[in-house]
């Protein structure tokens, strides 16, 4: 008798699992990046008042942008990180793409020496999400 109940339970579980799997049609995780990671050790190697323009380029490569402002030459390096997740049910599909950027600005004075280094990282807070509603 107990064996029969167990068999029925197994069949019920299998049916439930099959139903759930047929409703959950699929899901996807996508990831993409633009630009190289701005490594903290590379940024730390650049010393204010000491490092030169050439040393900056040697450490980080050519900047993505160069801006001239207030007597400074400003090198900008940026990187984008993209995380996308999709949940594809039989009837409804949900997907969400999150993009965040890291930006590094290096201010170089008129003598070609680094005056200021500003690094902002947002990509470490980037998450995979599929729910497209709410805040």
């Amino acid at each position, binding site marked *: 008798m107990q064996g029969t109940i167990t068999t029925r339970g197994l069949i019920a579980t299998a049916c439930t699992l099959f139903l759930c799997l047929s409703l959950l*049609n*699929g899901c*996807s995780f*996508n990831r993409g990046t633009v630009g190289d990671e701005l490594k903290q050790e590379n940024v730390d190697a650049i010393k204010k008042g000491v490092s030169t323009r050439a040393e900056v380029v040697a450490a980080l490569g050519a900047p993505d942008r160069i*801006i*001239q*402002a*207030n*007597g400074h030459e*400003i090198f*900008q390096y*940026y990187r984008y990180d*993209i995380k*996308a997740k*999709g949940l*594809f*049910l*039989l*009837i*409804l*599909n*949900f*997907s*969400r*793409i*999150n*993009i*965040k*950027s890291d*930006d*590094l*600005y290096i201010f170089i004075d008129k003598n070609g020496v680094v005056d*200021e280094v*500003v*690094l*902002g990282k*947002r990509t470490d*807070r980037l998450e995979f999400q599929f729910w*497209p*509603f709410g805040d």
Partner: protein
Amino acid sequence: MFRCCRSGLAFLTMLLTLSGCGLASFNRLSVNDPIKQEDVAFIELEHTTFTQVVAKLGTPDELISLGDDEGAVAFYHFLDAKYTRINYGWPLQFVSPVPVDMILAGGGLGTNMFLVMFDHQWIAKQQSFAKHLLANRHRLWPFKDN
């Protein structure tokens, strides 16, 4: 603005790959975290420096010079886009011998920017939001006026 356009293009491309074949799809794209009015309340014009702004808000997405020793403008971009696609013909596949599609789709691209203008000594002179964020919403019916 160029970066926002690029993000919009990326959004459209990814929609094509992510949109499934079910009855309805709800998609969203977010670029960076929105900056709220209370986040920028600390900025005192003629006092707050570029370094202080960066310490609170992070690095700007874009920095533009206003000319030699005339200051610069820092831009913080953020974007929130929502897109809905409903195939009203999808249920007919169970009764119709041929696939029937009647797809209505709509959405909105809410972009926003926060700008801080700095003088030649990197002290904040002006700040403002460019507000278009209300454009983002899921649209189930694309024929409404707005």
